[in-house]
């Protein structure tokens, strides 16, 4: 059915674990330096870009174009007095930044930067290491970071930090599930969890032969698995606590969230570092999973040498910059969502849709693999669609009923308030007004009602 076209094939799992120790060391140092510089100039890029989007200049004092601004900030943080408030849990307070920053760096060790190259006479893949469970490893490291968040909030002994930590951890773990589920479709097509082999699997699309016609399939999974990609994009914003899901740092509500008590010292710099490194990690994962990893995009890929040697590192870096700019663009465009909306989006929308999408992709994949029992698979798919439809219908009717009940209750309450304005605790407005319940299906009536209430209250 599916025939693979010949394409540039990079390293596979078997090519790893053979490096001499000094090659591993070079790669590890490279990743460390890459991420450090990435954070320094990433912060600058973000500040500059967002200020241009908001008609401001942004940093323009330190160095040319303000390029050295982050360096100056970093130096200042490194040399600043490190305050540890009297009441904090000293051990946890010290450990939290380390626990959050180390896994953030570790996750980058499985990101493929390029194919096999010759490094000082040794043939080696441009990737520190690869595991049979590489993507799971990234998710595990993201989970480890949550410990840092919780412990930072807990150890600070400050209500703001504690609430910020709880909020942040609830958000990250919720979005991590949706993220893991959105990646399952990629594994279904690639048949592996190893990042280098997922990149290989996107080297060339197969062809789908249907009734004598052979339709070439696109090779990057972003096209074929677009719904997965959309879910992944939302979850990657949620996972890294970025706008529009930056509630852990909602200044108006929680001051600085879990790192409120880390007065901008080196420890605070580590939280900052971890946040940006996490952004790079989820971007790199998106590139590896959906955008063909280090492989050259279309017009460049026509050139034969595009996917050989050291060139792919450039393509990878370009994709990373674009992904980072996407983060900034989103930050400039979207407002922050409310906490209950955030959780509802994660649990009531992303996770059910992910599950349904996995079922669909698995069925289609089975159809393409096995010529034999199509009717059975189709029948199963039909049954599943019917079951989902029935469930949705049942759900929808009960929700409609609840909505109607609530509306009736709100109407009744407003009627009571109209007849007897003091019932709500006049002159102080009642703590719980009907419109706080979020019923707004008939705004015209509600507005008229509330106007009446206020006018009568004035009398």
């Amino acid at each position, binding site marked *: 059915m599916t025939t693979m076209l010949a394409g540039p094939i990079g390293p596979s799992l078997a090519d790893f674990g053979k490096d001499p120790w000094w090659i591993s060391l070079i790669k590890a140092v490279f990743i460390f330096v890459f991420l450090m510089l990435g954070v320094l100039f990433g912060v600058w890029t973000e500040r500059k870009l967002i200020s241009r989007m908001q008609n401001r200049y942004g940093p323009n004092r330190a160095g040319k174009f303000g390029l050295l601004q982050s360096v100056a900030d970093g130096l200042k943080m490194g040399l600043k007095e490190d305050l540890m408030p009297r009441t904090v849990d000293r051990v946890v307070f010290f450990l939290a930044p380390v626990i959050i920053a180390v896994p953030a760096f570790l996750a980058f060790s499985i990101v493929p930067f390029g194919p096999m190259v010759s490094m000082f006479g040794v043939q080696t893949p441009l990737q520190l290491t690869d595991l049979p469970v590489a993507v799971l490893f990234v998710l595990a490291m993201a989970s480890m970071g949550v410990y840092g968040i919780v412990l930072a909030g807990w150890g600070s002994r400050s209500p703001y930090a*504690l609430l910020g930590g709880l909020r942040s951890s609830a958000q990250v773990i919720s979005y991590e599930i949706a993220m*893991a589920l959105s990646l399952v479709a990629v594994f*279904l097509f690639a048949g*592996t969890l190893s990042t280098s082999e997922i990149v290989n699997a996107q080297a060339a699309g197969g062809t789908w032969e249907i009734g004598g016609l052979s339709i070439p399939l696109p090779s990057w999974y972003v096209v074929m698995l677009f719904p997965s990609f959309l879910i992944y994009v939302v979850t990657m914003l949620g996972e890294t606590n970025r706008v529009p899901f930056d509630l852990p740092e909602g200044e108006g509500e929680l*001051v600085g969230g879990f790192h409120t008590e880390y007065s901008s*010292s080196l420890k605070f710099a*580590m939280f900052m570092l971890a946040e940006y490194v996490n952004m790079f990690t989820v971007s790199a994962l998106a590139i590896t999973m959906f955008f063909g990893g280090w492989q050259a995009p279309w017009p460049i890929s026509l050139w034969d040498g595009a996917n050989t040697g050291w060139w792919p590192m450039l393509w990878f870096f370009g994709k990373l910059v674009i992904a980072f700019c996407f983060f900034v663009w989103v930050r400039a465009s979207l407002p922050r969502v409310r906490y209950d909306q955030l*959780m509802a989006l994660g649990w009531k929308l992303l996770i*059910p849709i992910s599950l349904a999408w996995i079922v669909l992709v698995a069925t289609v994949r*089975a159809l393409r693999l096995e010529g034999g029992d199509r009717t059975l698979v189709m029948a199963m798919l039909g049954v599943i669609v019917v079951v989902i439809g029935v469930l949705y219908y049942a759900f929808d009717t009960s929700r409609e009923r609840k909505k109607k009940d609530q509306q009736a209750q709100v109407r009744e309450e407003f009627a009571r308030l109209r007849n007897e304005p003091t019932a709500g605790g006049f002159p102080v407005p009642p703590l719980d007004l009907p419109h706080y319940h979020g019923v707004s299906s008939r705004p015209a009536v509600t507005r008229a009602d509330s106007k009446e209430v206020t006018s009568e209250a004035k009398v």
Partner: protein
Amino acid sequence: MDGYFGSYAVVAVLIVIGVVIYVGALTINRLLSPIRPSAEKLLTYECGVDPVGEGWAQTQVRYYVFTYLYVVFAVDAVFLFPWATVFADPGFGLTTLVEMFVFLGFIALGILYAWRKGVLSWT
């Protein structure tokens, strides 16, 4: 560093290196930075106003149920991953598909139950 565990050894070494780098950075910071604490400096910051009472406060944690749900769904995802990798191999095929659909059905029932119980909405 070769063999099956070679790749994992790199990760383990990397953990050690990472911890050493960070602890080293914090130590250097300790050595270079001035340390002149005062009572005001060591006060908990909170929101800028002097803190009242203890740092601990009782509050209704509205999201603790999510951690239970997280365990269920994280395990679900961990089961899905190996299934997705062997799914296309010869000899698995339709039976694997049906089994996973049954499993996903149970999981979906779980989230539906939580939904109906009102666990997922703000209380």
